[in-house]
């Protein structure tokens, strides 16, 4: 792979990789490091580029693997917010029109999603926030497309139950 190809096809994906790494790792510094490492790895594996059908998915897969390795190596804790997920009192849902209440609702949704197992969470984010197709998600995670559908369904179901338990309604 020439430097030109790297600059035109891989470097533009960088913000996406950073966002993906940030969601997985939960902080800027680690997300930066992992993005950088992923780009270096892509550069080192440039001979593979010719065989690839979806370069972006491949870059995202590398980023995810590196991020998961990091999480495993450091026994990462995403943030204390995860622990607070179940402790949020349901009685705070009385005035959904106030701005502070809206932020609170958003925070609860964020916590509920972050409390999902990594696979569910990643699939949900890739589909419902980033708008990736099932095939693209399957390529990124290197799994079967049916697995994507099944896991996405379970992820949505789990989030729904969590939000029902927390009585998070309206905006």
């Amino acid at each position, binding site marked *: 792979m020439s430097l030109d190809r790297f600059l035109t096809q891989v470097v533009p994906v960088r913000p996406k990789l950073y966002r993906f790494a940030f969601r997985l790792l939960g902080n800027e510094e680690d997300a930066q490091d992992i*993005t950088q490492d992923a780009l270096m790895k892509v550069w080192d594996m440039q001979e593979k580029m010719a065989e690839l059908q979806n370069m972006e998915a491949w870059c995202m897969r590398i980023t995810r693997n590196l991020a998961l390795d990091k999480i495993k190596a450091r026994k990462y804790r995403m943030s204390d917010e995860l622990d607070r997920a179940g402790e949020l009192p349901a009685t705070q849902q009385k005035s959904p029109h106030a701005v502070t209440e809206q932020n609170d609702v958003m925070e609860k949704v964020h916590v509920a999603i972050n409390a999902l197992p990594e696979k569910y969470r990643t699939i949900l984010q890739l589909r419902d926030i*980033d*708008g990736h197709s099932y095939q693209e998600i399957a390529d990124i995670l290197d799994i079967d497309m049916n697995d994507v559908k099944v896991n996405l369904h379970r992820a949505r179901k789990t989030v729904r139950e969590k*939000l029902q338990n927390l009585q998070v309604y*309206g905006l």
Partner: protein
Amino acid sequence: MDYKEITVLVEKYWEGETSLEEEAVLRDFFSTPHSALPEVLQEAAPLFGYFHREAEKVWEAPPVKVVKLSPWRHWMKYAAVIMVAVGIGYALKQHQQREQQVLVALEQQELNDPQKALDETKRALQLLAKNLHKGTSKMQQLSYFNEATAVVEGKED
């Protein structure tokens, strides 16, 4: 679009049966506040509100760190190659030296052989001669004794 259609879409969404386009419609619908939403939609509103907010978020990737690639970054590889080359060179040199030593030793052995053999033979013959001489002296003593006996016997005769 009335709430009925959206309600159907939301139900499809929970079942995991919506297409990307339908999900975009849902995100779009929930991005603006609506009054008097039915309970099914109220339940989904926070989630889609969150999705919309996250999708709209501008992610500024930090500036790229410029990593200077030093020509010596692979120094261990170079060192290993040099070590292997030195090792092979040393082994070849040793081999040649030993071969030469063996050749010299063989030549020397060939040259020295006759002299050595002669010396060895002489020594062996000397030993033989010595042992024979021992036997001869004993025989002489015996012959003296015989002679003496004969003289005595002759005198008596």
